[in-house]
């Protein structure tokens, strides 16, 4: 297993001065940040200021926020997305833990078939069957409901295999010890495995949270009722607030929509990195 902290390495590939690298990195970071910085500027302006290419903060931040957040109820979309992301992330983690447990610690008839069934889904992205799925899920009468954007995504081969791999790298003695204690699988999972898996859980959480929050195509098909819409799709209607293309409110809402995944990513960066290093090295 490898750590993910090259900063503390003593030995290095590089020779020479540091400052050219500092400059290069700052320039690169600014280049990467440019679209967001520009959007932030636009978010403060009204259309007149935008059309005159004013490069200083404008006067419309408050009114842009007012129209996006209250009048167009972007708050509602944010709330819908939050619920969706939390349900999917939690559900997926729990189901993946259960599946990983079954795969590593149980021997049962037909295991190869189950394993195969789950494995094959790695090459079945939802997008290639999206039309059939649209018909299927709307046939359940689930259009415009939270269920339609949560339930289909609760299971994941990625998650199941991630935990399977993580558990199978753990010492066998763990199981033997808990069997002597007579622990049930649930207890074994909650008392022994989960405490040893926080990094992997955090990594999966970040990946799934970002993935779910950023989902666009599926909600754009199955959710049409504006009050049930998620942020990424709600952005679409914000291109027109009151009759014309309104850049400021659109940029502002794009920034607001990026805050939750960015916060999750930054807060959980450390465990994410180490969990991710675990996942990588086989």
């Amino acid at each position: 297993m490898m750590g993910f902290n090259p900063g503390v390495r003593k030995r290095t590939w590089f020779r020479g001065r540091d400052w050219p690298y500092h400059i290069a990195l700052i320039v690169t970071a600014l280049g990467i940040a440019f679209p967001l910085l520009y959007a932030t500027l636009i978010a403060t302006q009204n259309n007149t200021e935008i059309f005159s290419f004013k490069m200083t903060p404008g006067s419309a931040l408050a009114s842009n926020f007012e129209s996006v957040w209250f009048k167009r109820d972007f708050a509602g979309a944010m709330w819908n997305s939050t619920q969706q992301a939390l349900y999917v992330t939690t559900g997926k983690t729990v189901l993946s833990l259960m599946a990983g447990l079954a795969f590593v610690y149980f021997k049962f008839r037909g295991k190869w078939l189950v394993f195969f069934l789950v494995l094959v889904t790695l090459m079945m992205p939802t997008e290639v069957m999206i039309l059939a799925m649209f018909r299927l899920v709307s046939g359940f009468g689930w259009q415009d409901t939270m269920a339609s954007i949560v339930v289909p995504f609760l299971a994941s081969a990625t998650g199941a295999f991630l935990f399977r791999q993580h558990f199978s790298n753990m010492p066998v003695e763990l199981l033997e010890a808990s069997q002597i204690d007579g622990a049930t699988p649930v207890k074994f999972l909650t008392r022994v495995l989960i405490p040893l898996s926080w990094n992997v859980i955090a990594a999966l959480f970040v990946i799934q949270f970002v993935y779910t929050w950023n989902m666009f195509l599926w909600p754009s098909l199955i959710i049409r009722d504006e009050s049930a819409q998620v942020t990424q799709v709600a952005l679409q209607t914000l291109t027109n607030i009151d009759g014309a293309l309104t850049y400021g409110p659109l940029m502002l809402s794009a920034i607001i929509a990026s805050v939750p995944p960015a916060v999750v990513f930054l807060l959980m960066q450390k465990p994410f990195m180490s969990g991710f290093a675990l996942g990588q090295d086989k």
Partner: protein
Amino acid sequence: MKHRLLILLTILAMVAAACGDDSSTETTAAGDQPATTQAPDTATTAAPATTAGGGGEAINIDFWVAFSDEARLGFSEEKAAAFNAKHPEYNVEVTSFASYNDAFDAAVLAVDSGEPPEIIHFFEAATRQALDAVDASGNPIFKSVTDAIGGRTDILGEPVVLDDVVDAARNYYTVDGSFYSMPWNTSTTVMFNNMDILNAAGITEPPATWGEVEAACEAIAALPDGPSACITWPNHSWFVEQSLGQQGELLGNNDNGRSDRATEVYLTSDGMLNYVNWWKGLSDSGYYTYTGLQRDWDGTSNAYLAEEVAMLIYSSSDTTFFDTNASFTNQASFMPYNENVDYVGNLIGGATLWMLDGMDAAQEDGALAFLNFFSNPENAAEWHQITGYIPITKTAEAQLVADGWYEESPNSKVASDQLAAAENTPASLGALLGNFVGIRDIITGAIEDILVNDVDVTERLTQANEEANRSLSEYEQLFGG
């Protein structure tokens, strides 16, 4: 076998759990959403339970609106709230959709799953499809509003306004002799002119014909500090249909699908070639600017407001918006026409409200009362004033004249005048086609190809014609009699 049973049981449990989960999230959503209830516009719809009052359950009437902007959605919510206050035994609940297509697709799905709304807002192009829509057992989904009213002059105290609807809308939406849906937002295409630029170029009146547009553009292009282009309009099939109406050409057979179902479309008619060639000519000489997107209302309106073009052909629905937001002298005029062909007439566009079939008498009367209340003279006049859609009833129009509104806002009269000038022929009524939405996309796709890629107009339209006819015949195969 046991394993399979187990899987099956789990699936059932999950489905049940998911459904339960869903209803609980909806209640929490209503409760935990401070932002919605703070917004004054939506407060009334967010709390339906309170409007019901003490006297028993109010009858719910779902009303789907394909608008999501402040002015239009706000109007719908406000009127629904006013109706609920006036008739506490009913509760009209507005649901908003981002576009006509979204509302239409959602309605088809809702019907399939047995939870359709009572009133739904469909655009004109979906008229044929709405008439063809059937539920699982093959019965039509919607009920003719005329039949439901059944000759009554008022319903629950709301005077019936259906008979008062202006001719242009009545003629468009009357199919097989029956007026199926209640017109709401109805507009036509008009041209908005930046008179500051036109005057600077020595033109005092908005151009009326294709030739005059070209001449005006030539003059504007010669201006030293003129705009980068001269004119724009959205690449939307509606403008093509308008031009066919002006030139008296049919888009579909059987009198544009009005004497019988249309089974053929004509995308290579003379009128079509004239219009597209004129369009391409303007584009080639740099007069017409294309925003690069199909159906781009926002981009074209922005180009006009940012004074990148001097003229904008657009929907009259935004007359008030341009009057308020233009920082220059904005004047509306008729849509320019082909001077080489006799003018026949422009058609309407917009949307109507369709009523679900199969409601019980009390609910149906509530829905009918709401429809007539929604377009009563005061509401229809207000709707016209805040948007620019034509006043939908004659009484509303007369009232606006009496109030002196048109003297105050002359641009608002252009749309009604243009429709009044039209002859009543199948060509100027516009087509009723199956899969019209798909066929419209084929038309705009071909035009985009012609505008950007410099392909041969006739060849490309012939190709589009094949595509559109195949699409229509397949639709007829699935839906036709």
